């Protein structure tokens, strides 16, 4: 029994991680209706930039990270103008597949530049033993991830709920034409959203790289479970992303420990299908009404 509890707790830890990756995706979806498949590679790129500043330019990590964050913000905005904005009327599916193409491009470039000697050791932000619950030990970095995830979620949720900017984002996503007519600066808002997305990605990348080992394809194994968690929790709900991801983490880890890896994947898939059947809007999502 102890084993299962421990597995569940470690599942919470990994679920928080998936959820944190998912925030940026949900935020972008809420604001633009586009599902960003490039979130993982953006995050990895940001982590690489920070690392390059430390190893090549000799900066301390705590100086390199803020620089990398700024750089990613700028890069996100550039991505918006080069990849997303041209012919924005092409439809959501087209733009979503563009993010897929972007992901492949960034991956190929990172492999070219840094792939040969990957994976690389990455400095942790915090060091230390961590705490023990049941028989599982949660290292300090995991606790930091959990804390950061909670803070980001609260900040983003407050942004959408209480600020003018947040309201503008939501309006833009739901009714882009009307929003424009009402004077919302759609381009600026969208560019800002993409910039913010890239920044969030870099935060995740920097926190994750010590345990996942910095390599161009570092985030790939996480993405599928992140998307599953988001869909489970409700595409437009930030707490939903967290909840869904944590559920995925727990179920996956407990099933792996109880049976084996294949069973773990199968069970998560089954849960995904069932929840989507019974509650298509996700656990915490809102039912979307379609006007005719």
């Amino acid at each position: 029994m102890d084993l299962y509890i421990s597995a569940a707790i470690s599942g919470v830890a990994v679920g928080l991680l998936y959820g944190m990756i998912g925030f940026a995706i949900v935020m972008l979806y809420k604001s633009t209706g586009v599902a960003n498949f490039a979130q993982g590679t953006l995050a990895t790129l940001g982590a690489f930039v920070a690392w390059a500043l430390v190893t090549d330019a000799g900066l301390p990590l705590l100086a390199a990270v803020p620089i990398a964050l700024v750089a990613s913000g700028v890069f996100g905005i550039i991505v918006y103008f080069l990849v997303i904005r041209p012919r924005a009327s092409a439809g959501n599916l087209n733009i979503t597949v563009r993010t897929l193409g972007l992901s492949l491009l960034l991956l190929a470039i990172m492999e070219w530049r840094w792939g040969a000697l990957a994976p690389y050791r990455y400095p942790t932000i915090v060091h230390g033993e961590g705490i023990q619950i049941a028989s599982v030990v949660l290292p300090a970095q995991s606790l930091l991830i959990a804390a950061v995830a909670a803070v980001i979620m609260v900040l983003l949720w407050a942004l959408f709920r209480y600020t003018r900017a947040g309201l503008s984002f939501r309006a833009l996503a739901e009714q882009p034409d009307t929003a424009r007519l009402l004077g919302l600066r759609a381009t600026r808002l969208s560019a800002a959203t993409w910039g913010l997305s890239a920044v969030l990605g870099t935060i995740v990348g920097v926190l994750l790289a010590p345990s996942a080992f910095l390599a161009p394809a570092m985030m790939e194994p996480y993405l599928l479970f992140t998307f599953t968690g988001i869909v489970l929790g409700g595409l437009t709900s930030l707490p939903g992303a967290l909840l869904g991801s944590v559920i995925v983490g727990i179920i996956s880890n407990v099933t792996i420990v109880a049976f084996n890896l294949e069973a773990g994947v199968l069970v998560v898939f089954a849960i995904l299908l069932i929840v989507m059947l019974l509650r298509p809007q996700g656990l915490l999502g809102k039912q979307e009404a379609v006007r005719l």
Partner: protein
Amino acid sequence: MRISSARKFTPLAVGVAALALILAACSGGGAVGAGGDSDAEVGVTEDTIYLAASQTLSGPGAASCAPSTDAAKLYFDKVNAEGGIDGRKIDFEVIDDAYDPQRALANVRGFIDKKFAMVGACGSATAAAVYKTLSSAGMPFLFPTNGVAEVVKPAAPGVFQILPLYEDQTAALVHYGFEEFGAGSIFVVVNPLGEYESAIERAREAAEQGGGEFVGSAVAQLGTTDYTPIALQIKEAAPDFVVISTGGSDSAKFVNALVDQNALPAKGVLGTSAAVAGSFLNSYNVAAAEHLYLGSATQLPAAPDNECIELLADGDFANDPIAHIGCASAMGIVQAIRQTSPLTREGLMETIESWNEEDVSPGVFAPVSFSAEDHIGLATLYIVQPDGSEFNVIAQCPYSEDDSAVGGCTAAG
């Protein structure tokens, strides 16, 4: 405006004709660079020997694979600079297959009529995909990094491997562990590399025959993000030894998880050569170093006066065991070619089969032996331990399929 089908017909026909022209041009182009009109042997002309490799040069696996052929190329270049082999230079072409077995097959099919021999392959999936094609075409397949038993057992004509199979390694490792620390319980963790089922089975047999017991196993995909669940299982089972056959990065992740969860086994972690890679050294938690006993096909650190080691000394891969293996294998190939006259594919195969304790790359490989029935060159495994950013040999263990015939391990001098 709607366009009638007739209108569409014309431009599309033009487009297709253009496509046909391109294909024609390419098909002509493909014939260039072949050892075409030699009557001596495929891939051999008066002044050139054509060698080729299908290798994982891109994608996530590249880091564990590319150094092998990069190092081999360095060695072939050196040989060429010194005049080649009997006046022939070596032309070495490496084509990417991105670890896709189907692409590897496509590449290999293109080699069969033009190249003399195939040099290595990285990873069991690609080796398993191509060996039958190569063997039935009579083209030598020299020294791949492979863990799939059926590739070399029973011995297929032309397919030679230096490195021991993972299943032989796990058995040898258990012997070593029991010899050094006394019999105990084992838990086995593997990635699906080669015949992982056999790897688990042989470890189990070795444990039970040695007076220990087998308490469990786990299989994890390459690239698993979280080894904590398995670490927890191990903590619960509390075995004396953990036997692993996992890739470089995965081994590091797994070991780190064991350290984090205070789950390191009492007597030690025994790992196959899959873990002996630069990618492991880059990322493992050094606190675990003393608990790790890994099997290596090559001597580490390698002797500094070895030709390969000198060659690699200034580069990025100076300490990467994969590069050592690649270069040392190239040394073996060059030696085999030198010993074969006239140079034919069959002749090469016979040369290799005749090797008995042949020292192809002293200071890196132990002497290798082959025969008509045995196409695996090495019969001993070095036991190494990581130390900072290097591996050090601490013992040497013989192994074979017949466990009872195995002698004891010898500690490093």
